[in-house]
């Protein structure tokens, strides 16, 4: 697809891998080149991804074959109104260095979406103006969408510990 070719051509080795499973163009980007890539995607006229449709993460620590690899993937779904195309960008980070540069400077909506990722996965975003939990409360212990968070864990403010 043109989008992935363009990204590979412009970014060279910063694009770690690409695939188009089920027609979704996907590129895994080096963390260091993330902001540059996002900016390129937004501002380059033939990419023109104006909308940060979604920003989320996934914990791959229980994924068959990827238990040892980088634990988290932060996933950006971009959409271009001008060209009507989509791309999915991913950044892989390890658990002991789970920090990703914040995209709030590019899209204001990244503020809340990054807060949600911090809330649910414990991935930090450097230079984020206000990295508080979004959906849960400050006293909540742990990050519930991590795979090692048991679904039946009780929280201190809610009920007795089990």
């Amino acid at each position, binding site marked *: 697809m043109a989008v992935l070719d363009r990204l590979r051509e412009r970014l060279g080795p910063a694009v770690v891998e690409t695939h188009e499973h089920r027609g979704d163009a996907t590129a895994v980007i080096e963390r260091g080149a993330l902001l540059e890539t996002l900016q390129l995607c937004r501002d380059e006229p033939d990419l023109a991804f104006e909308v940060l449709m979604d920003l989320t993460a996934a914990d791959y620590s229980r994924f068959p074959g990827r238990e040892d690899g980088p634990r988290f993937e932060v996933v950006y779904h971009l959409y271009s109104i001008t060209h009507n195309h989509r791309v999915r960008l991913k950044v892989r980070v390890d658990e002991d260095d789970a920090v990703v540069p914040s995209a709030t400077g590019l899209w*204001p909506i990244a503020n809340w979406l990054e807060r949600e990722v911090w809330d649910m996965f414990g991935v930090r975003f450097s230079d984020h103006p206000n990295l508080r939990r979004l*959906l849960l409360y400050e006293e909540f212990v742990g990050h519930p969408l991590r795979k090692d968070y048991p679904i039946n864990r009780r929280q201190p403010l809610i009920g007795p510990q089990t």
Partner: protein
Amino acid sequence: MSITPTRREFMLGEGSGTGSGGQNLHVGVGPAHPAMHGIIRIATELDGEYIRKADVEIGYLHRAFEKDCEVGGYNNAIPYTDRLNYVSPLINNFAYASAVEKLLGIEVTERCKFIRTAMSEISRICDHLTCVGASAMELGAFTVFLYMIKAREFLWELVEDVTGARLTISYGRVGGVKADLPDGFATKVGHAFKQTREVLDEVHRLLTGNRIFMDRMIGVGTLSREDTIAWGITGPLLRAAGVPYDVRRAQPHWAYDRVEFEVPTQKDGDNYSRYLVRMAEMEQAMRIAEQALERMPGGPVNVDFEGRPLDPASYVDQGKQGKTEGLLLVPIRLSPNLQGQSRGALQQVNAADKRVVLPPKENAYGSIEGLMNHFMLIMEGYGIRPPQGEAYFASEGANGELGFYVISDGSDRPYRVRCRPPCLPPVAALPKMIENEMVADLIPTFGSVNMIGGELDR
């Protein structure tokens, strides 16, 4: 000091707030405020009647939707999706099912696509009716609220007719829908739409040119086109700012490429434009639903049978006695609970993929293959098993782009389900819409955002 009074003095009397000791007042609106549909807290900082700063706190309705999806099978998440946007649950059902279908790489039948299209549009009207009615009520137009709830009732009766429930409908299935449409559904839709159109006409006459309503809505809660895009806002709010982006048009799914409709837009991006867009969209939604029902293909129905319909008990008895010859072809008289789920009906609406779709009850009870098929999909550790991979499916929810991002690790449970909630971006942008406006304007702006706690907090 200027001689002409400042705006502040004009509001609060001469000399007020001109000293250096002026202090802003902090007022928390919500979480249990009647105008905060659902529960949400807006911490405001007021200077007189003007909101200088606002901070929105969400999460009061968080129910761990995404975590819950990971512990059950793929179809087990369907009831949870009902509770995302609980005003238009059908769209959530279908969008989630379509995301899993995309992951599996299967196509649903044509008839199913048309059913999804028509039912989604009926849901969309319900959603817009609730949004417009509630925000009009908050501005004092209680009559409009009653009229719109009346119209919503007509539509919910349709939903009830098809799904058996009004709100928590769980009608979508991976690979199809739960049951075929009931007989004479198109006629009922015709009646309901006729009455809905009358209500919309009444509401237009009550509100659209109403001086009070216009004064409260025009120029309030404005968000420019650039800001709307930068905040990732989609749906009626984006179209009200002049961007004709609609997933149904841009990336047609289901049967949206085979029906004609317009994408209504406005230019100003204020509350009044959002109101106009929603009112126009309801008419378009009715057009789409009517066309979808009219053009709905029948699909093959297997009717090559001999003998009379049986009741299910004797059907099972015969099967137990080993009298299975020809049993698969005998139609059974289903209990009313299973209306629309006879073999012929299910074949019309479900994908022909045994790895995904439950067999009809006749097969499950009448043949060992059907029983095994049922077993393989229901028992723990079996079930639907998409290959490893990931898929993002976008559909047009009532509030904007409703996306589901599903990751499969090859097992029978989704590894990760992410819902892109369409009303989170506008709620995130709410401070920008209400800051430096008056407290009273918070109410119509918040109403036009159409915050739905279920999908916002998940």
